């Protein structure tokens, strides 16, 4: 073994301690993401606002991280500047690349030896660990270090959308704008001011995807229930979910854990 992952923290402020590690889950990725592997680790907590719930699917491999709307903010969370005491997973996705990067530990694949001019090896793999959530994204297939970092960051955003849940108050539910924007035009609650429907290839899609997952989790995986809140037919919402591989996978993991049939 001549190579090791070398940790090099770029985090300059205090870390949010979220308790002990509970395990490592592997997320199989859609073919559109040419990823070597992505690992998602959920971490539990007893005293912070974070908690984690294991979704008991038949592989027993999934974790979701829940953000409470009502918990207090840890004093170390200097990156959240909402100021309303409302700490939500959505905020991670609203951070700029630089701000998100500051919350991450950057690992690079380091070979033994002096490096620099001594070496000609394209070990430009990058692994990002998002410290507040423990979510890890990595990229190795690009030809430069710089591009791998960008790919890893883009994947981290997708994973944050898929894995970090915000609580939803169903009694007073009104879908946020970013969710309305990914709905098809036939939705009865979608105003014309939402513009054309945003598809999975648009970077803004993940914000809507996160809000959609929040709702689907709140209604326990029932597509027909969620569809009612969105002014859509069950079929139309199913088609939306099936249009993105990672979204479909997370919804189906949830449905299986609730004893429901997976969407096909």
């Amino acid at each position, binding site marked *: 073994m*001549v190579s090791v992952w070398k940790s090099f923290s770029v985090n300059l402020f205090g870390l949010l301690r979220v308790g002990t590690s509970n395990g490592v889950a592997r997320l199989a990725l859609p073919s559109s993401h040419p990823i070597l592997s992505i690992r998602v680790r959920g971490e539990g907590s007893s005293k912070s606002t974070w908690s984690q719930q294991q979704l008991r699917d038949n592989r027993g491999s999934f974790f979701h991280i829940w953000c409470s709307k009502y918990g207090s903010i840890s004093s170390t969370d200097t990156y959240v500047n909402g100021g309303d005491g409302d700490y939500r997973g959505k905020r991670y996705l609203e951070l700029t690349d630089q701000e998100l990067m500051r919350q991450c530990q950057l690992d690079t694949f380091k070979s033994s030896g002096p*490096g620099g001019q*001594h070496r*000609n*090896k*394209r070990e430009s793999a990058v692994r990002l660990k998002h410290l507040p959530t423990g979510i890890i994204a990595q990229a190795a297939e690009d*030809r*430069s270090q710089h591009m791998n970092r960008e790919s890893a960051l883009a994947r981290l955003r997708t994973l944050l959308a898929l894995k970090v849940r915000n609580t939803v108050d169903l009694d007073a539910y009104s879908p946020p704008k970013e969710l309305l924007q990914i709905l098809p035009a036939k939705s009865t609650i979608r105003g014309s001011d939402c513009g054309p429907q945003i598809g999975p290839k648009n970077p803004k899609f993940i914000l809507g995807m996160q809000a959609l997952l929040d709702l689907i989790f709140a209604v326990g995986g029932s597509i027909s229930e969620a569809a009612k809140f969105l002014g859509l037919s069950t079929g139309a919402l199913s088609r939306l979910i099936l249009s993105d591989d990672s979204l479909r996978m997370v919804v189906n993991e949830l449905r299986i854990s609730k004893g429901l049939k997976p969407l096909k």
Partner: protein
Amino acid sequence: MRVSFIIGYGVPKFSILLRPHGSCYLCRPMCSSSTSALTTSQKPRTSLFLRPPTHSATLSDLQKWQNWAKNLASSVGSTFVDLDNGPDSTLLRRELKWLVEDVTEDGSISAEQQRNIRLRVSLEELYKLWKQRIEERRPFQYIVGCEHWRDLVLCVEEGVLIPRPETEKLVDLVADVVSDNQGLREGLWADMGTGTGAIAIGIGMILRSYGRIIATDLSPLAVGVATFNVQRHGLQDVIEIRQGSWFEPLKDVEGKLAGIVSNPPYIPSDHISGLQAEVGRHEPKMALDGGVNGMNDLLHLCKGAASMLKPGGFLAFETNGEKQCKHLVEYMETNAGGIFCDVNLVPDFAGVHRFVTAFHK
């Protein structure tokens, strides 16, 4: 004000700042005919990905080549790793994928394609190139004639050092200091021993219409490649390439530089023979060998920087690692006559102390 004046009239800043009387290199159209007119530079070989797809092969012949190449890569196993810490099969197969990316129009070979696939080199050449990669350990970057570095694709060929991923950070260090320092952002910078022009182009992308960069290299081959890369990135009004040894071609800007950056040769002479084959057998010694302890050029640059930089000027050098970094810091703090301040050690992405930065008082 000064910036808006210059942009408004479209006058290259160099002609005002540096060469008020003599012929202006940057005023001439930057095309290959004008560069070949310079006796000091040579026209570089065209990278594979920039060649027109004038060749073709049948899908089955190409797949046959790909399978042969994969098998050759797999047969290497960990032989090169054990020998001199060279690439293993996994890395070689990844390089093979990149080679396919560069020589095909679509960037891949798939069964859905037409029977005839257009190629940027002949099938015969592909066999030859992959053989060179495995049997001669010819660096992949010389095979395809380019290296992906930061968000740039830089042309490179034998005789010119392949830019390393570690060096990407030098550009970030400059980006950091210019972000809140207008004097540095709008000043004149120098990249000493530019090679492919990588650092100069990286910085040029940041300074754009504000500052200017002079990139020097002793090697006429490097001057040719750097000139080509600068042009390809449309930075000919920002970066000027000059041929010569270290500060020799910069006599007219003594005491005027806002910043000096360099990745000079820093490998100790007695390490050269034990280098990984791709490096030791194929890359220019001139760009690697830094003398007995590897510090010859670093110290020379450090001494020169004292008189070349203007007050408040910045320098950033890449080194071989912690030992050289410490040596350099010690030199700057004790032997340089108190000229430098804020001397800093900066680690690379792998955590190795790789860079020294400092300011001129």
